Each structure stands twice: as structure tokens, then as C-alpha cells.
């Protein structure tokens, strides 16, 4: 009976305050979408780190026909230069820093390139000798990149030494920045959501002060009096959270794993199922925020 009664009260409260309730739904929707987007970016960063960090290496690129670097003044790297570099890599001084290394010839580089950009027209405009051969070095400790770089970049026949990890770090820091920005927007939006929930509950309590006054007088418990209001806020926020989750899922499903994954074949995107991990967090966050702000509002504006 009491449950039915409370449900009825919630229903009438939601109906009576429909426009406010809709705005609470929308604001929590937007704010939690930003929270979720920030979370997704972090997940994406972790995923890429996990995927790339074992694979990325320091690459010592050898001079080819088109090289313009100082060390390449004498033209493409010769067989001797290459042998010399290999000897250096095998010398104890360098060996202590690396796990292993591989030589990637121009032909292999071309094969990899074709694989990577298989569905891009760029493949047709690049020929084998435009791509440099390279030593791919797998570091014991990627932080020691500097040592390798200093040792090899001044060697004859070396065009450049590149730390692929650094390139990735740049991407990650960019993604991290985006995630922080999303979180910043989320915080502002959550603040708006809390204010809006507070106002909505206050209005709702005001518009039903007659009922609550009578409930108080006839001895209804605090729970029976307050619960409909609190649940009103919580339900609106949960609907917003569900909308946010659905939006994020759609984004992951149709954008990350649709468009983007065909454009960036080598990038490991988070799957839409992984995004579902975020959904309960968003729902709990929405419900928690709404519950707490409703409770605090009622404590001030609804005498019991």
C-alpha cells in the first residue's frame, strides 16, 4: 500500500513538474556524456598503451635516395655502413640496453607500408626506394632512448633515430588533454545539474507543501514524506545517465568501431562492450548526485 502510494506520488510529481524534470534529464545526460567521454578516452589511452608499448621500438633509419640529413651527404647507406651499425648494436656497450633488434629492409618497409595503408590511394604514389631501411630496436628500458639516439644519430649512413614511443606519447598526451578538458566540461555541467536538481526538488516540495503538511500532521514517516521527492530527482538523473550511456555506446559502436577503425586500421579501438563498463558508473554517479542533492535540499526546504 505504502509502496503503491509512494509510486503514485512520484508519478504525479514527475507529471506536475514535467518541464523541470525534462531539463534535469537533459543536463544530467549532457554532463554524464562528458564524464563518460573522458572515461572512454582514458580507456582508449590504456588500450593503445597496452597494445603499442611492447611493439614500439626505437628505429634507426638509414639514408636512402631522398635523404637530406647531414649524415647522408654521401648518398644511400652502403652495405659496410649497415654492417658497421649492426656490429655496434651487438657490442656490449649497446647490448646492455636492448632486448633485441631487427633489420627492416626497404622491401620489407614497403610491404608493411602497403599493409598499413591498404585501402588508401597513398600506396600507389610511394615506391620502394622512397622508404628507408631501418634497424628496429626493442629497448629493455624505453626511457634509455637518449643513449641510443646519441650513439647512432651521428653515425655515417644514419638519417635519423626516432623513438616511436615519443610519437605515441605525444598522441597520448593530446588524448589525455582532451580527456581532462572533457572532465572539466563535465564538472561544470555536473554543477549545473546539481543546481537544477536542487531547484526542481525545491519547486516540487513547494508545489506539494499542502500534501506534505497534511502528511506530517497525520503522522506519516519521514521516509514516506521525503522518498517521493528524492526518487523524483533520482529517476530523472538515472534517465539522463541511461541516455548518456546509450549515446556513448552508439559512439563507440558506429564511430570508433565503424568509421574510425576502417581509417586507422592499426589502432586498437575500445569496443562498444567495453563502453558498457562505464554505464553502471554513470548511472551510479547520476543517482548518487541526485539523491544527495535532493536529500540536502529537502532537509532545508521540507519540514518533517
Amino acid at each position, binding site marked *: *500500500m*505504502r509502496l503503491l*502510494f509512494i509510486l503514485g506520488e512520484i508519478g504525479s510529481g514527475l507529471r506536475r513538474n514535467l518541464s523541470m524534470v525534462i531539463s534535469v534529464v537533459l543536463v544530467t545526460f549532457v554532463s554524464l556524456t562528458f564524464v563518460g567521454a573522458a572515461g572512454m578516452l582514458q580507456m582508449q589511452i590504456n588500450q593503445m598503451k597496452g597494445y603499442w608499448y611492447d611493439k614500439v621500438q626505437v628505429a634507426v633509419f638509414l639514408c636512402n635516395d631522398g635523404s637530406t640529413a647531414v649524415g647522408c651527404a654521401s648518398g644511400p647507406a652502403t652495405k659496410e655502413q649497415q654492417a658497421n651499425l649492426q656490429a655496434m648494436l651487438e657490442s656490449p656497450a649497446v647490448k646492455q640496453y636492448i632486448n633485441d633488434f631487427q633489420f627492416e629492409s626497404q622491401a620489407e618497409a614497403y610491404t608493411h607500408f602497403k599493409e598499413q595503408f591498404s585501402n588508401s590511394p597513398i600506396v600507389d604514389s610511394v615506391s620502394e626506394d622512397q622508404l628507408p631501411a631501418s634497424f628496429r630496436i626493442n629497448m629493455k628500458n624505453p626511457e634509455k632512448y637518449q643513449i641510443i639516439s646519441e650513439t647512432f644519430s651521428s653515425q655515417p649512413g644514419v638519417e635519423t633515430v626516432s623513438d616511436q614511443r615519443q610519437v605515441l606519447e605525444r598522441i597520448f598526451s593530446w588524448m589525455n588533454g582532451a580527456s581532462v578538458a572533457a572532465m572539466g566540461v563535465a564538472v561544470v555541467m555536473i554543477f549545473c545539474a546539481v543546481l537544477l536538481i536542487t531547484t526542481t526538488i525545491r519547486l516540487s516540495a513547494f508545489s506539494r507543501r*499542502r*500534501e506534505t*503538511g*497534511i*502528511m*506530517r*500532521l*497525520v*503522522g*506519516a*514517516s*519521514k521516509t*514516506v*514524506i521525503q522518498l517521493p521527492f528524492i526518487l523524483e530527482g533520482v529517476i530523472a538523473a538515472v534517465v539522463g545517465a541511461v541516455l548518456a550511456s546509450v549515446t556513448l555506446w552508439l559512439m563507440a559502436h558506429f564511430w570508433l568501431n565503424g568509421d574510425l577503425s576502417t581509417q586507422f586500421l592499426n589502432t586498437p579501438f575500445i569496443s562498444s562492450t567495453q563502453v558498457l563498463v562505464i554505464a553502471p558508473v554513470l548511472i551510479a554517479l547520476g543517482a548518487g548526485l541526485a539523491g544527495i542533492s535532493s536529500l540536502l535540499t529537502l532537509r532545508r526546504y521540507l519540514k518533517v
Partner: protein
Amino acid sequence: MIRFENVTKVYEQNARPALDSVSLEINRGEFTFLVGASGSGKSTFLRLILKEDKASSGSVYVAGQNVANISSWRVPKLRRGIGVVFQDFRLLPQKNVFANVAFAMQVIGKSRSIIRETVPEVLKTVGLEGKERRMPHELSGGEQQRVAIARAVVNRPGILLADEPTGNLDPITSMGIMGVLDKINQNGTTVVMATHDDDIVNEMRRRVVELKNGKVIRDEAKALYTSMIPVVGESRRLRDASGEELNRAQGAQL
């Protein structure tokens, strides 16, 4: 049933107390009028019984229990034992008569079958048989007050507090309401009614407690609105006027 021991209530630090060391006992089953000019502290007296307000000093006992010792989560239980009606009825305009009365039972978790059984009985007691489906705006003032009384007593409280229940009603309708309150009192409910309607008090001949500036100045059984001991020169108009006006008028007499 209700006992005040030296109860003082001060709302604002510098103002005179709304109640000033009031000591009073109201027994089970009694019908008591609380009379006095507006601002004399009648509503405050009733609010203290309900624990709507806290006494500044002294103790209020309801059914043997000091209300100051009732924890906030048990206050609803206290209030279930007390029915209240007001001058302005306080009905829910979008609920019909039946639903208004049923509301008081729903919110304390009474089952649907008990509600269906009890509400018509109570509506019969207050003389509203057959008007279950009417909306409040389709009722006269007297009928609306009867709905409010039905709602106040539907959970069978031991005490009924009425704060100027006839304040908005004409004399004949008021007498009808008094009949209902009397009937409820006959059934064993302790009734405390604040009023400044002298005709009603004179008609009923019940206990009268008179407040003036927060002090009990008279407590008489089977009494009239005004004391039997006449106050020289006090006119009917002044009795109905506010306390201050009364004071000013009395000052002018001197």
C-alpha cells in the same frame, strides 16, 4: 492526557513570550475550549502538543510522555495519536472527499481494504454520507470542515485539536460543526478547541481556559466565554479585538 508544566514559549528573544509559564492539565475524554484574543497564544499551545514547536522552558506531556524526550523519528507516532483541524480546512483540492480522508490512512500505510471499510464509516459520523465522490470545491464551507474533521479522526486518535475550526463559518454552520465535535468527544476522544467564537462557547458549556498575553487567566468548568465575574465597561467589541487594542482601550478607561 495533556499536561503543561510551567511551559514558556519565546519565539523571538526580545518579544514577550507567546506562552508564559502555563501549567494546565487536560484529562482523557475532556472537551476544553481555549479562548482568548488573537495573539494570546492559543495556536502556540496546540503546536506544542504536536511537537511542531519546542517549549523554551517547562515540560509538555502528551499521554504521559514528555514530548521533549520523543526522538524525531518517533514524532510521527505521536502525531498519529492526535488529529488536527484548522480554520482553513486544508483539503487537497484535486482529490475528492473519499480520497482526502483516505489520504490520511494511505500515508501511514493502512491497507486498501481497511481504508475502504473505515472511510465511509467516518464520513457517516461527520454527516457526509453519499458525498464521497464530491470534490472540495463542490462543497460548502461547513461540509469542507466536516471532511477535514473526518480526515483528522479517521486514524482514531485519542486527541483532537481544533484551531478555530468555525472561524470561517456562519453561526448556524458552526453549530453543526460543534455537533460533530461533540459527537467525537462523546466517543471518547479528548477535544481541545481554540476559538474566539463566544456564542459557541456559551452554547456548549464546557471547560474554558482563557489565555491573555500567553498567561492562563481563567480555567473554569462548564463556563461561558466571558468570566461570570463581570469586567466593568468591557464591551463585546473589545473582547473580539486584538490584545493590544484591548490593552489600549483598558488604558484609556483608567
